[in-house]
């Protein structure tokens, strides 16, 4: 078989010493959709960066149409017909879709050097028509949905002449319905003769969409299969290198008294949009309340207000009968609210500080660590930190080592180790397993269930729909800053039904939603 794009013995060593790709042989044929799967940190993104010219390989060769190529930047890759849609969109929010599409290659008015907006709009509409990727050419990016932004990113690549499209986890930000729509569009592109590399770690998507699938683990290419000839268990074993338990085991929740009641919370973001629009909910002991929604529908703001990191414009937060509305994070922590922040790199940890310092940051002032006259009991701190490192299986050489030297999964265990030993009654957990390897995910899920069984009240926010559905006892769905549905029993709904609520196509009546307050 003649391959359109092929690599031979490709290796990449990052300056920090990470060996991200090891002797990778990879190939994609013209007109196919190739799935690329692997855990986080398996080297998928690095491989794509090498193909797209964003990074240069340490050794090995890339062949395009049988000829060896060396890209010095992504400009070269675009010129050679390779386009990439990043997980985080590269768009200017305040410009229109048409302007974003032509950015860098703008149509001019006649022979002048003035920008021709009308022509740009025409180009956008024509291109959208041709590939069945319809977008509102005149709307501003900030005003359109995530799925339309993604379509625009694909159009952008096509406008620049891409024959090979690389999509990096495109469904991570989409609802189930939008995902189905995207698949239809990608299949249409394939019939136009385009080649698509589809990166994902969701196996059902690979089986639905792809012709072939390549599996990466630990920086190496493990194997490539025809999708028709292989089953899920094989692929998932290859991804992880061992048998995995894909489901979460838990007993029925024994919900107790209410410990946190939030009423009528609102937040206006920097664009003047109501990111949180009069949201109310209550958390009960021994119960996990899951929050479902496409990223950016108010979940982050809700978490930040409940934990004191942002101020609500209205309403109240009452913790165990005490009004703590708009108090500082320290006050909420002292009242028994622990918080796993969604971004462990910028908020959840202090990267240059030691593991020990990170683990003690919320408790250094407790009597067991603080002696007289402001002196810290360093031996006690070191002992406590080492204990957490052992119980939470944080893989490190010493607790004095900086957190920045840990892998993503172990960094997350530092955050979880601290928050789960904080002796809090309420756990606000955001994206607990984002960017964490499968082994650590299992571990983290087990710990969350344990905390629930110890009688803690848990609020779980995650953009991984599967995760929230399997972990939660009850669910709320958020759309455009509002709670649009509440399910007392999380197992009584399906992902399709949740998708309709996530998209805002369906909405429960206020009485049904109000049950979340358990009044």
């Amino acid at each position, binding site marked *: 078989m003649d391959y359109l794009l092929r690599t031979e013995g490709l290796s990449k060593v990052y300056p920090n*010493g990470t*060996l991200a790709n090891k002797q990778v042989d990879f190939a994609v044929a013209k007109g196919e959709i190739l799935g690329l799967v692997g855990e986080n940190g398996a080297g998928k993104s690095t491989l794509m960066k090498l193909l797209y010219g964003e990074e240069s390989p340490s050794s090995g060769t890339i062949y395009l149409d049988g000829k060896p190529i060396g890209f010095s930047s992504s400009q070269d890759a675009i010129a050679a017909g390779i386009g990439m849609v990043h997980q985080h969109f590269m768009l200017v929010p305040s410009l229109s879709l048409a302007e974003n599409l032509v950015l860098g290659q703008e149509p001019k008015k006649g022979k002048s050097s003035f920008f021709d907006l009308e022509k740009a709009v025409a180009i956008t509409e024509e291109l959208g028509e041709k590939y069945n990727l319809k977008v509102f050419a005149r709307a501003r990016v900030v005003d359109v949905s995530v799925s339309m932004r993604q379509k625009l990113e694909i159009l952008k690549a096509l406008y620049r002449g891409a024959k090979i499209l690389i999509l990096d986890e495109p469904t991570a930000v989409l609802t189930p319905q939008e995902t189905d729509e995207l698949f239809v569009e990608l299949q249409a592109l394939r019939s136009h003769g385009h080649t698509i590399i589809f990166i994902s770690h969701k196996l059902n998507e690979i089986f639905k969409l792809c012709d072939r699938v390549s599996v990466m683990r630990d920086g190496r290419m493990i194997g490539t299969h025809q999708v028709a000839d292989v089953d899920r268990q094989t692929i998932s074993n290859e991804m992880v*290198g061992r048998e995995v338990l894909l489901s979460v085991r838990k007993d029925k929740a024994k919900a107790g008294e209410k410990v946190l009641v939030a009423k009528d919370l609102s937040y206006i973001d920097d664009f003047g949009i109501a990111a949180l629009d009069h949201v109310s909910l209550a958390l009960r002991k021994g119960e996990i309340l899951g929050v479902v929604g496409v990223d950016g529908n108010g979940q982050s703001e809700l978490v930040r207000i409940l934990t004191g990191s942002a101020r609500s414009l209205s309403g109240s937060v009452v913790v165990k009968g005490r009004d703590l509305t708009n108090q500082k994070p320290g006050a*909420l922590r002292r009242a028994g609210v622990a918080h796993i922040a969604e971004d462990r790199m910028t908020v*959840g*940890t202090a990267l240059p500080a030691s593991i020990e310092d990170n683990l003690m940051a919320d408790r250094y002032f407790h009597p067991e660590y603080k002696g007289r006259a402001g002196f*810290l009991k360093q031996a006690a701190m070191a002992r406590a930190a080492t204990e957490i490192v052992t119980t939470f299986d944080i893989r490190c*050489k010493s607790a*004095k*080592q900086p957190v920045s030297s840990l892998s993503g999964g172990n960094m997350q265990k530092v955050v979880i180790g601290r928050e789960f030993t904080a002796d809090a009654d309420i756990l606000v957990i955001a994206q607990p397993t984002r960017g964490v390897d499968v082994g650590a995910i299992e571990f983290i899920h087990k710990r969350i269930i344990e905390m629930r069984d110890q009688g803690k009240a848990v609020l779980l926010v995650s953009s991984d729909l599967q995760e929230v559905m399997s972990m939660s006892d009850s669910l709320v769905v958020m759309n455009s800053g509002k709670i649009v549905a509440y399910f007392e029993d999380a197992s009584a709904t399906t992902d399709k039904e949740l998708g309709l609520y996530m998209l805002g196509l369906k909405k429960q009546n206020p009485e049904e939603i109000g049950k979340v307050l358990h009044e």
Partner: protein
Amino acid sequence: MSDAKTRGPGPLASVKLFFTDRDKLEPAVITLLAAIFAILMGVGLIFVVSKDPVTSTKNFLLGPFLRTYNFYYLLVAMVPITFTGLALCIIYQLKYMSLIVDSSFYTGAIVATAIGVRLALPAGWHPAVAMLAAGLAGGLIGTLPAILKIKWRANELVSSLMFNYVFYFFGSFVILYFLRDRNQTILASMPFQKTFALPKLVENTQLHAGFIIAAVFVALVSIFLFRTKWGYQIRITGANPKFAAYAGIPVASVAIFAHFVSGFIGGIGGAVEMSGLYRAFIWQMNPSYAWDGVIVAMLARKNPKFVPVSAFFLAYMRVGADFMSRRGDVAFEFITLLQGIIILILASDKIANYFKARRLRRNAFAAEAALAAAPAGGVRSDGGGKGTAGAAGTGGKA
């Protein structure tokens, strides 16, 4: 990974030691190389500009040790830059950039002058009261850029440099209008009371008790930063302010408090300088010890423990250059050039991370080679992805 655990603490402990040592050793080596390189550049420069380069070089390198007087002078010169260096260590641990300690030091000297001239107090008490008052004044001044930054997000480097002008001219005004000795032709305050002077440590030299006070402050600041809850708060806030706030640390008050302590130390430094070295306030311009403090703190890698070493080094270069310029044809100002070189080397992340990057790269390639040498087939039964990281560690040791 599990088999590594069963091996017991023996090899793990040695790995632990190995790791922490390497990480601390490399910056020290780079700092040392920067210092040696600066000196070599200095010698090179002397050979370019001097008519008698050998004598000049000898004076520059050995001058501070040729005469006991010079050596004591070196020790005296360490005192003010130790204080400003310590003050800046605190600011840099917080990851702020304010240089307000210049105002704290200068105003501390002015406050001490006022007390030294106007108040009648018993010996011993007199300089102590002056130091305390100077420290408080310096501390309050020190908080200003932090408050402006927290309230209005005013850049603390800019605002502190502006404040330095304000407080310099305010200090001059105070001397000129309230404390001036009108019998002197130059601008000088009236002479200090006899009780104000700090005792000399060695007769007939300039070495005064301020040297010991500085040494005590080195210990105090080390303890403050690394043994107390306030130091912990400062270090965590500096490492990541967002994290600190999230963990419940009151970041705004921590920043203001740290600036107060830093300014307090600066103010005491100014008072010590007055009561230790002078009989009246005779500065015709701001000596700007804060800028020397920047070099001292950077050379010490913002760790107070190393401040005496870097202060000694800077004072050594100063005294050497001074001695050489008075006995030869090389101007004293050439020291500024050497300081510039040191700052350039230390401020460049790429140079600072050179060893680390090289070691990591070597480890990675060792891991790759080990992988290539391993039997083909790819899939290994242990499946521990992180196992290779351990292999990389041992690869580096070999």
